[in-house]
């Protein structure tokens, strides 16, 4: 079979995807999968043109998203003073006027993660990844169950010494865990309704979870920014990254392990993988954490899609890979190696784009009202959900936003919202979907 792929096409499509990713990935809650859905839904460009367009466009967009999403997580998801206990390092950096440094540390991790991914996949990965896949594939669901249990078990009871009575201490100890359970199961129920009812119009079935994920991960942050009327301190935008070689190695190793787990196992996401990777590498310190986040997310997002390009592995992981695989699945080694080269190219471009975008956003946010920018983002997210999924999508969005808000005020992990994916899949593979659908009134 002859392949008519040209490196010029690869670069052009990849850079177009990267351009879109760089332009829009700073918006909080706008996952790259939603971005791709929007592109495919709004334009017939990919369904009638070159078959190579979608995979390389998506790869460019995903790599750019891996870098550029650090802007949203650093600058646009800031806590107010009532939630000091749950500040992430990136937010601490931001409130200390060092948001740009957090982005730089993140980018260091992302760059190392992607270079490792490309080096590994094009050498040892060529041979070992199909073996690893065959080795683990019968046990995916056990791994998924183990990760869920690990998430809950690692939320050991906290604050139990603050109560005045035994009952109060019991409540304080278990409050956060109970909040996590509430969030997990409420998300799971919403996942069932989005998947097994006619709420979402059929022609956009692939976007059925878009209202949920924007509700879980995007809108609560944005709304809180608006309500808290936070103002940001002046930001130091010098290109300075404060870290040490040991922290870089530790953070990158932690992130690569976590991102690799998330990319390889279905349903497990970057945050869950990073949690496991952090424990595996025993990471300490804000700088190592930020580097590990960059590496984990880059390896997770890009790795999951890049597996689709591996001709002998034949594995589809993640929403973007499923979307692209629906149009065209790369089949030849030349397509795989072009993909690897594109990752390096777009990583370089995205690194530069993210650094300068970070600088621009840092300056913008100290001049323009943070609440106003958040309001614009909120309107955009709501409009996007309405455009894709209609009024019922807005209903799901509202319910999901309530769940995301609950995760915040209970100071619990936002990744419990992934119950929307995990619970339906777990019950399906264990054979209990029937009973749950009956209980939920949609049978």
């Amino acid at each position, binding site marked *: 079979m002859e392949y008519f792929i040209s490196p010029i096409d690869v670069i052009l499509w990849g850079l177009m995807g990267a351009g879109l990713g760089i332009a829009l990935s700073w918006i909080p809650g706008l996952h790259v999968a939603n971005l791709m859905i929007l592109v495919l839904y709004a334009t017939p460009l990919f369904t009638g043109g070159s078959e190579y367009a979608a995979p390389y466009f998506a790869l460019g967009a995903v790599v750019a998203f891996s870098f550029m999403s650090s802007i949203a997580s650093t600058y646009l998801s800031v806590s107010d003073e009532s939630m000091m206990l749950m500040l992430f390092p990136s937010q601490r950096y931001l409130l200390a006027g060092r948001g740009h440094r957090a982005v730089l540390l993140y980018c260091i991790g992302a760059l190392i993660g992607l270079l490792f991914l490309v080096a590994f996949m094009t050498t040892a990965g060529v041979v070992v990844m199909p073996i690893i896949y065959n080795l683990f594939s019968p046990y995916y669901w056990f791994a998924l169950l183990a990760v869920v249990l690990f998430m809950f078990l690692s939320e050991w009871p906290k604050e139990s010494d603050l109560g005045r009575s035994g009952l109060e201490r019991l409540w304080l100890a278990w409050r956060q865990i109970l909040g996590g359970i509430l969030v997990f199961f409420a998300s799971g129920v919403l996942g069932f309704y989005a998947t097994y009812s006619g709420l979402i119009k059929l022609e956009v079935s692939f976007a059925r979870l878009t209202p949920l994920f924007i509700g879980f991960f995007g809108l609560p942050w944005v709304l809180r920014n608006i309500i808290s009327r936070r103002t940001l301190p002046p930001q130091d935008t010098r290109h300075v990254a404060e870290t040490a070689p040991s922290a870089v190695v530790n953070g990158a190793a932690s992130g690569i392990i976590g991102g690799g787990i998330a990319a390889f196992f279905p349903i497990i996401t970057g945050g869950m993988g990073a949690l496991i990777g952090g424990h595996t590498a025993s990471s300490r310190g804000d700088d190592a954490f930020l580097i590990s986040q960059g590496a984990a997310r880059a390896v997770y997002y890009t790795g999951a899609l890049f597996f689709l390009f591996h001709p002998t592995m034949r594995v589809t992981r993640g929403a973007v890979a499923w979307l692209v695989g629906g149009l065209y699945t790369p089949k030849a080694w030349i397509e795989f190696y072009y993909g690897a080269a594109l990752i390096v190219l777009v990583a370089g471009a995205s690194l530069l784009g993210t650094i300068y975008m970070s600088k621009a956003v840092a300056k913008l946010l100290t001049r323009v009202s943070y609440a106003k920018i958040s309001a614009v983002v909120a309107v955009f997210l709501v409009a996007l959900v309405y455009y894709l999924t209609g009024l019922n999508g807005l209903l799901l969005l509202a*319910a999901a936003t309530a769940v995301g808000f609950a995760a915040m005020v209970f100071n619990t992990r936002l990744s419990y919202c992934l119950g929307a994916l995990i619970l339906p899949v777990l019950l399906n593979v264990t054979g209990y979907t029937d009973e749950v659908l009956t209980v939920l009134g949609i049978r």
Partner: protein
Amino acid sequence: MSTPSRSETSDIEKYIYYPEMAPRRPVNMGLLRALAVVLVVGGLVGVYYAAVRSPMPVVPIRDLENNILMNYATVYIEGLVTSPPRVDVIGGKLRLTIHVRDNSSPTELPVYAYDPLASEILKQGVSRLPFIGDRVRLLVQVRVRENFTYAYLQDVRGIYILSRPSGERVYVDTLEGVAEYSYVCASGTVRNPRNVSAGLLFDITTTRGRVTVLVPNALYHAYSGELVGAVVSSLSLPGTYVDLCGVVYYYKRVSPEIVVRELEEIRFSPVQPVRPPVFTVIDIRDVPNYVNQNVSITGLFYAIYYSAGTYYVEVRSTDEAFAVNVTVDRAQVISLLNPAVVGWRSLIRINGTVTGPRTIRYIAGEVLERREPLTVTVAEALKQPVGRPLRVLNATVVSSSVVGAGNWRIYIRDASGATILVFVPSSAVRDLGISLPPPGSVVDVAGYRDVYRGEDEIIVISREGLVVRG
């Protein structure tokens, strides 16, 4: 704005790392948590009420094919199961595979069920197992990979068997000309048993020919091992006499075989069976001389009539000068002489009992030389005599309505400019399993000509008689 010196501690750093130095804005987190719980519960209740009012729709397969935005859509599909259920063991787990086709698309949708669902379906026996010839409604989740669309069954209660081929035990000696998905029986001795990936395949030598039979491997898992062992052992022994029933399946669309649906439908006989009735082979012109006797005639399939619950097939001598009417029931006429499959003037053999000088009661039959259905324009159809089996292709629906107890009246027009009524009785509507084609739809119609209350019409009697093209 100026950047704070690195040697100093900025206000914000004091604020972050020494929060006790800055006045805190009092926020009642307990109240926020309570509010969050109320909002979560309220949101779930709201979604519940909206969801129970938004049932999962039945979607034509055409809408699912090659549409990546339908990836992961969970929908109902409704159609005909077109292949025997097949079970594969992959990594120690069962995978059940069936294929479903509706009239919206010429292609079949592969539908899979993996363990534990596959085992759960099979554990419930054949009652929940979608079988070839069944008209089913299935809750599935769709996957689209390039130009390959497939689906996964979602749960046992999402399987609805709407209708299943059945009827009287009509015995055949050969499957040539027997319509696919007919429910037929055969008896004879087992020959050439062989294990194939789909199950146990063997031939039955009947009194007049040979019939191929498949016991699908899905039945191995739907019955107890003891029963399966006994049946398979007996069928694997050449020379065993069996009497069985099942659904006709055309393997690769050309090779007909009976697919056994239930192991209870297989009966073994240790002794030579009673021989079936003997039919005297006569010329069709001699029928008046054989009243009350069993005869076997050959002739041309000429027309179909219907009166008071009985169908009459007109069979003519090859010179078309002499005709007899053969009384058949609906299942028999569809099984043997489906107007969408067997064309006017096909050469057929009829075995039956002569009940009058020109009437025969049908017992068995076969198509000896099949002709393609007579394809005409609407204008030409209007000129055809009553009873003539025919076919009209690519006609456009002008208007359509449901009358009486679910009968369809569809007016069609084609390039000839003429219009004719297509009448689909409710019995055929049930088999079609599609919704009423709206005006503007393009359809293929196969049936026989009739005139009712002075109006020319084509009567559709089989599920293949009305195909919606677009």
